[in-house]
Every structure is written in structure tokens, then in C-alpha cells.
């Protein structure tokens, strides 16, 4: 790539329809308030509260089984919660109030709210029957109701910006893991979400392919995207995160700037975790 072209280009993504946001809007973009989640009798999330400020990159660390992925899925409205709430730009989402009680919205209604939140999965989850281009187009045509031609242009442009301009007609099975994950990022990004959630985006990659994905994520962070990243990449957390969150056994046990957290973790369990991953 000779000239640098931003990933978050208003000319490409267009202004968001029907949104009251302004660049100076205050308050967290995304917030979890006392989230609780049960699997049977097991409490996976035990009152998790989190606030993500506009443009912040929040990296979530923690041992496997600590509830990180579950938290992301609840934030993305992909799982029903058993307590607490999720707020997007100050508005409670995922539920509606009926007689003082919160009732989960129907799938159709949830769908619209989900389109405001981008999600990237550990195992990419690209659609194997569609080319890279079609993978990125699908949300534009099905959710944003763009025309085929309009969607094709935006999708091709976005793929070029993540460095896959020559791979648009390839199917997922013909792409490397790193390329697949970059398509997945483009697929989420193209809907112009208010926040991007990453669920261990590099954990399924061969070591030599991790860099190209982290590069795109760093670029995204530089351009001011609001991000929540669950990862084991300590380097990424140190250099890109604005805040680091440590989770263990369904709770947030510590939160701080990366400088504080890595130099001087307050919690014993944070210390043990950092020793284990180093």
C-alpha cells in the first residue's frame, strides 16, 4: 500500500442514520452494570461492571474460564443475561421494561441493536459459502439494506484497506488464518459500529500470522475506534490498551492503566496470571 487510507473513513462508511451522537458526546459508549450470567447453577458472571469511554481500547485479561468471552457475548447481546444491564451510549439495550421488570427483546428487535456493535470471534466464523467480498457485503445488504452495487463498492474498498484488495474473490477456505480474521474485521467494521468487541482474535492463529491481525487492530485503535479486546497478547495490552481489566472467576478483580497494571499488579491473582503468561 502506497498511500495510507484510514479504516474509519466517513466517506466510505457514511454518517450513522438516526443517531443523536456528536463528537463531543459525553459518557461511556458501552457499559456493563452488575452483569450476571448463569449456566445452570454455575455463575459465570458475578456482577461485572465495566465502562468503555469513547475511543478507548480496553483490554481484558484473565485465565480461561474466568468469564471473559461470556462477558463479550453478553455485551454483544448474543446471550441473555440473568441480571444487571448493558448500556450503549447511556441507553439500556437488549431488554424492554414491562411493569418494572426487564424482558429480553425478541430476536428481530435485538438484531437491530446488535448491528451497532461489531464482534470479531476467535475462530473467525466467516461464511464458507461466500467469497471474502460477499462476506463483507452481507451485512450491508441484509442489515443496512444497501443495494448490491453500493455494498460491493464499500466492501471492496474496506477489504483493500485491511490489505486484502487482491483477495476479494477468494473463498475463506482459500485464505490463511490471518487473512480470514482480517476479512472478519472488515465484515464487522463496514457496518460502522459504535464499538468493536474482539474475542481472542489471534488465539487460533499460527504465530507468524498474529502480527498482521494485531496491526489492523492497532491501526483501528489509532483512528479512535472504541474497542474491548479479550486477548492473551500481553504486548498488545502494553502498547495499545488505554485500560487493562483483569478478570477471574466471573469478576473483575482489577482495572488500571497498562503502566500501573503491568508494573505493579495490586491483586495476588493478577500477579500469578502475569507470571504464568510471561
Amino acid at each position, binding site marked *: 500500500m502506497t498511500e495510507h487510507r484510514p479504516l474509519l473513513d466517513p466517506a466510505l462508511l457514511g454518517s450513522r442514520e438516526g443517531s443523536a451522537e456528536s463528537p463531543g458526546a459525553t459518557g461511556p459508549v458501552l457499559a456493563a452494570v452488575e452483569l450476571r450470567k448463569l449456566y445452570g447453577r454455575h455463575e459465570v458472571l458475578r456482577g461485572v461492571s465495566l465502562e468503555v469511554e469513547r475511543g478507548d481500547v480496553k483490554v481484558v485479561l484473565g485465565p480461561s474460564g474466568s468469564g471473559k468471552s461470556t462477558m463479550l457475548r453478553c455485551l454483544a447481546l448474543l446471550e441473555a443475561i440473568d441480571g444487571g444491564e448493558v448500556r450503549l451510549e447511556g441507553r439500556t439495550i437488549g431488554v424492554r421494561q414491562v411493569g418494572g421488570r426487564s424482558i429480553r427483546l425478541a430476536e*428481530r428487535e435485538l438484531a437491530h441493536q446488535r448491528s451497532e456493535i461489531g464482534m470479531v470471534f476467535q475462530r473467525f466464523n466467516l*461464511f464458507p459459502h461466500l467469497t471474502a467480498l460477499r462476506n463483507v457485503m452481507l451485512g450491508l445488504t*441484509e*442489515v443496512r439494506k444497501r443495494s448490491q452495487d453500493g455494498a460491493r463498492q464499500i466492501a471492496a474498498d474496506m477489504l483493500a484497506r485491511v490489505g486484502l484488495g487482491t483477495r476479494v474473490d477468494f*473463498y475463506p*477456505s482459500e485464505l490463511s488464518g490471518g487473512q480470514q480474521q482480517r476479512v*472478519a474485521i472488515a465484515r*464487522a467494521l463496514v457496518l460502522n459500529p459504535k464499538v468493536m468487541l474482539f474475542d481472542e482474535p489471534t488465539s487460533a492463529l499460527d504465530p507468524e500470522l498474529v502480527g498482521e491481525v494485531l496491526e489492523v487492530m492497532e491501526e483501528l485503535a489509532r483512528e479512535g475506534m472504541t474497542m474491548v479486546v479479550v486477548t492473551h497478547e500481553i504486548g498488545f495490552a502494553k502498547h495499545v490498551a488505554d485500560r487493562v481489566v483483569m478478570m477471574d472467576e466471573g469478576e473483575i478483580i482489577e482495572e488500571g492503566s497498562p503502566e500501573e497494571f503491568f508494573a505493579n499488579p495490586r491483586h495476588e491473582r493478577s500477579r500469578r496470571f502475569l507470571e504464568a503468561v510471561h
Partner: protein
Amino acid sequence: MSFDPAVFWGALTSEGMRAGAIIAISLTVLAQLTAVFIGLGLAMMRGSGIGLLRGASWTYVWIFRAIPTLVQLLFVWNALPQLFPALREEWFSAFVAAWIALSMNEGAYMAEIVRGGLLSVDEGQQLAARALGMTPWSVFRTVILPQVVRVIIPPTANEFITMLKITSLASAISLRELLTFTQQQISITFRFAEFYAAAAIYYLVIVSVFMVLQALLERRFRWTSQRGGERSIASVMRAIGAR
């Protein structure tokens, strides 16, 4: 009495045999197509969160797989008009009866095939599509269904071929398909070998055409960008051979 090529050729090119073949093919295509949709409905009911629907689907598959196809065919043709006067009309022909009986029977088998297809689609597919903000119907239509279709093509093609052969059961309700005509001619001429051989040739040719169509269809679902110049006869033959 030896094999008389002239009689064989006469049978092979007879108008009646051709007409019988057309009836067999039409019945196969219609019944199998209907069965795919019945199977899809049953499979979705089976996977639904509503217990009543799951139970109804299970019961359907249980009944229609247990009772011999011939019994179902005879029941629809002979018993149903006795029970429902509306079926004593002109339109309720042997063809319509066979279509109904064979699709309902085959629907039970397709239900299991489609269910397997639905289960084969990775959980992450739905998750990713929902995360994009797609509605359930949109997820099903654009993400799940294409992947199910790919998985069920080979077993469905198998069922298709079986269906063609099962249409010969309709000779029991005097539908003038291939076998009915063949047996009629045999009862007149007593040339068993020539007429059965001619019928066999028809079935062979029809099944071969199906196999080519299946190979072409499977190739459309191969999901690869390297498709150019592959439309040769050789590649189709390879696809058939690979099965």
C-alpha cells in the same frame, strides 16, 4: 424361445414406454421436490423450542418410516376416497394419489437428512450472522440454508434415485408408468426378457442423467474461486466416478 432383438428394439422405441418413462420422471421430480420441503419443515419443527412441534415431527417420521410404502400408496388411493368424499372427484387421479403418498413417505426420510444437514452447520455461523444484526429469517436464508443444501445434495440424490425406482410401485394402483406398461405388454406378448430389458435400459438412462445433474449441482456448491474452464465432460465424469 431366444432373445429377439427386433422385439426388444420395438419395445424400446414404443410410444407407451416413452410415455411411461415421462410419467415416472415427472412423478419422481414432483414427489422428491415436495418431500424436500416436507423434510425441511419437519426438521425445523424437530429443532424448535416448542415441545408440541418436536413431538409432532417425531411422530410423523415414526409413522411414515414404519409403514411399508406400498401400504401407504394403496391407502391413499383406495381408502382415502372412502373416508373423504371430496377425493372421489375426477382430479384425484392415480398420479395425484401416488404423488401424495410418495412425497409424504419420502418426507419422513428427508426430515432425517435435513436434520443432519442443520446439525452439521457450525454453531459459530449463526453467532457471527446474528452479531452482524441479521434477523433470524435472514440468517437462515443467507447463511444456514446454503450450507445445509451443500451437505444434503449427495444423500438427497441417493433418495432421488430410490424414488425413481419406487415409482414402479405405482403400477399397483394402475398408474401407467414404465413398469405398468411393461407388464401389460408382457401379458400380451409373453416376451419377458425383451420387455424387462427395455425397461431396464430406460431406468439406466434416467439414473445416468440424474447423476450428471447431481455432479453439476455439487460443483456449484464447491465454494472455490478456481472454477474457470472446469465445465468439461471430463470433469463431470470425474465427479461421477468419485462417488
